[in-house]
């Protein structure tokens, strides 16, 4: 029986003297469970619907999904054997149960590179969400992070490598924070809605990039026949610890993203700032009454979120992209995929981490590079990702929990 839902509809509060504690313990545990169940059901339904689309094209969905799975590189974990792996950043080798040089390993590196950026862009949505705001501007904040990383990375070539890469990454985060901070400041001071201002800032970022990296732009590279920047200096590149930097191996950016996940959890749950942010998010009027400055928290939440997205941009440049072309700017969608990841992950640290991996895998697995054309046309496969992503957002918006509650209510009335 869905006890929690019944309890919610129970219009009278429990008797003041009654001992309803055991039931409440149960209810809260149940609630925690539904917190994970709804996103899982959402994903399953989205994949089933995607399978239906595959079926319509006359292909076998099971085969296609299997191929997609292999394309993600996640199959790497299932091939256990006896191998030797190079210890990162050394020439020594050690025994390892997985083959670190297989094709699957290469695929997995690609997936994790995407996951890095999606997690950070997801957190850029999740953090303001906890403060009652919807940051649509992750894309713009990401972009300005890439611009500044390219600029600093390709200048100052004589800098100490450690300082150089640190400079790029920190500056990328800072500019992202400034970019989002503009929207936060407008919200805090004149009440401009953050959805509108962040969308406008996205376009501002895109067009600034079009100018900077375009023909004759200040960041166009030495080859004046193409609108692409110079590569960043070797010292500005993040260390690649798995695979080859030339083949877009995996940089230590993934660890930075995971660390930021922990930082996010810590800020939200274990700091006075997080307490204030959550209070403002749930009930700004009660927060104000409690002596919390609502405006300050609006600004800070946006700025911190922007630093996450800006960091994602900087890590992508210093981790594997190394340069930026004018044509890359308008087609990049990573900020919006981060938005989907935050929604699916319900703005929790672990949820954003897992959905970041899901979306990273999905995009990589259905990319033309990974998917065998004889099983499914890769150009259609890319659409499959979009379909699944769209369905996920649709279902998250629909709130499966509420629908389920309503079905139950009707069924109960019928009996």
């Amino acid at each position: 029986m869905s006890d929690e839902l019944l309890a919610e509809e129970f219009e009278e509060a429990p008797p003041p003297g009654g001992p309803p504690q055991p039931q409440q313990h149960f209810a809260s545990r149940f609630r925690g469970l539904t917190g994970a169940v709804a996103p899982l059901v959402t994903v399953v339904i989205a994949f089933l619907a995607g399978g239906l689309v595959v079926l319509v094209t006359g292909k076998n969905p099971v085969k296609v999904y299997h191929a997609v799975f292999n394309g993600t590189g996640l199959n790497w974990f299932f091939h256990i054997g006896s191998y030797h792996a190079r210890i990162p950043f050394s020439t020594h080798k050690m025994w390892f149960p997985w083959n670190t040089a297989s094709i699957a390993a290469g695929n997995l590196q690609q997936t994790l590179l995407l996951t890095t950026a999606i997690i950070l862009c997801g957190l850029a949505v999740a953090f303001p969400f906890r403060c009652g705001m919807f940051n649509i501007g992750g894309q713009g904040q990401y972009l300005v992070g890439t611009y500044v990383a390219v600029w600093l990375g390709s200048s100052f070539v004589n800098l100490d490598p450690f300082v150089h890469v640190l400079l790029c990454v920190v500056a990328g985060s800072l500019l992202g924070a400034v970019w989002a901070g503009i929207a936060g400041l407008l919200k805090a001071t004149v009440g401009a809605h953050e959805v509108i201002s962040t969308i406008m800032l996205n376009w501002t970022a895109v067009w600034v990039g079009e100018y900077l990296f375009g023909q004759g732009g200040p960041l166009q590279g030495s080859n004046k026949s193409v609108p692409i920047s110079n590569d960043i200096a070797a010292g500005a590149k993040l260390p690649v610890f798995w695979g080859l930097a030339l083949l877009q191996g995996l940089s230590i950016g993934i660890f930075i993203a995971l660390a930021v996940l922990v930082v996010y959890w810590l800020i939200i749950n274990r700091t006075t700032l997080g307490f204030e942010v959550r209070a403002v998010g749930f009930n700004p009027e009660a927060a104000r009454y409690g002596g919390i400055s609502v405006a300050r928290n609006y600004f800070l939440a946006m700025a911190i979120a922007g630093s996450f997205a800006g960091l994602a941009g900087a890590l992508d440049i210093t981790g594997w992209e190394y340069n930026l072309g004018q044509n890359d700017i308008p087609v990049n969608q990573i900020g919006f995929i981060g938005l989907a990841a935050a929604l699916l992950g319900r703005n929790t640290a672990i949820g954003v981490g897992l959905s970041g991996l899901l979306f990273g895998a999905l995009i990589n697995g259905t990319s033309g590079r990974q998917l065998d054309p004889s099983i499914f046309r890769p150009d259609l496969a890319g659409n499959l990702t979009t379909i699944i992503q769209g369905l996920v957002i649709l279902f998250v918006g629909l709130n499966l929990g509420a629908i389920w509650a309503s079905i139950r209510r009707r069924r109960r009335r019928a009996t």
Partner: protein
Amino acid sequence: MADAPLLELRDISKRFPGVLANDHVDFDLRHGEVHALLGENGAGKSTLMNILYGLYTPDEGQILLNGTEIDLGSTKAAIEHGIGMVHQHFMLIPVMTVAENIVLATEPRRAGVLLDYDAARRRVRELSERYGLAVDPDARIDRITVGQQQRVEILKALYRGADVLILDEPTAVLTPQEAKELFEILRSLKSQGKSIVFISHKLNEVIEIADRITVMRRGVVVETVPARGATEEGLARMMVGREVLLRVDKKPAEPAEPLLEVEDVVVVDDRGLEAVRGVSFQVRAGEIVGIAGVDANGQSELIDAIAGLRHVKSGRIRVAGRDLTNGSARTAIDTGIGHIPEDRHRRGLVLPFTLTENLALHAYRVPPNSRRGFLNPGAMLARARRLLQVFDVRGGTPTTPAYALSGGNQQKVVLAREIDGDPKMLIAAQPTRGLDVGAIEFVHRRLVEQRDAGRAVLLVSLELEEILSLSDRILVMYEGRIVGEFPPSATEEELGFAMTGGRRGGAEAA
């Protein structure tokens, strides 16, 4: 014949997870009577009536109408059997007219598809004349008062042919004047043979309007008594299960130095109009000063200004000698103002927060609850455990979200937080709104305790009874001004006269 029950609920039981909401309950309703169902929040009144209206299916028991068992699987079945319900929260469509709302779902039609608005208006007018429920059929719901909306709900039930009317806490949303009018309507309906179930937790009301009173407590019927001869004390005892002090027992005040000084304060409201127009008064340590007044005469804006939630246009506010004029809410808290806000859901609590977090809403920023920006969950939890025990908060643990508590227990949480901050002065704005007898007693005792501990207490309430029983001095506010000061021995009539602008200054009466 008068004694033959029209409707009978026999041996009804309804169980919700962890709670037996109705435990073998018997209830009957006679022709042409008003039968009050009295009980604290959570006693099972609404559950029983929702069963009668077909919203819940009982686990056990029978429902008999005129002696034959009926099956109420849905509200539709209940309506077909002539049972109508007026909920506490109205089910009306704000942008439609009165007539449209009343005929909704069974509207008279023209040519099969078009609403015959003239016929609808005619029928509504017939009904409202017959039962003395004056409403304008063409008025839009969002343009009429709450009292009128309630009449529309009653008319809707009558239009659908209800002989039995269930009214769920109908006076909770009404002003005293509107409540009087409602009682007139109920008497008129009764005289025309309608039977009424009147759910309430207000003692004086049920004695006034009901013929019989059934008292429920924790899911069981305690007793059914005739209203004639029932006393408030006796009913309160049945409701709560122990003696309840309806009058607050307190020693004479020993006022000391002034802790709150308000001088010629002018405050504008959200529309930019002057809501407080030059108010001056003091509250001393060890006294309770009550501000009486009809709602929206500037009380809320005055409290906001003192608590640092609204700027003043002119004037001064000092607390314990410190100038707080136009200070922030945080300064007010730090200076030692405890504030029980008038709306605990909008302001007093962050409902999705746990009780631990709500109790720490001010104290989260000071040690031991946090150090250098990092929270100390252990200290917050220990504090919550202590406060929940001291203030006897029931129905939740420190990790329960605040929305899961009953109103009385939520208010205890607010009270615990504000008193534990060791304030110099305490603002209590409508501290017992929506609470039942037991919880009211608890809150009142705590406020007197605070006074006796040497704190200054500023009480703002719309309930004259509360003002009279708690205050050591009474100020009456009318249209943004203080129009009189009265001793606690003043009568409700005197206060009521001043509250409606009848007289400037109580001194003339003395």
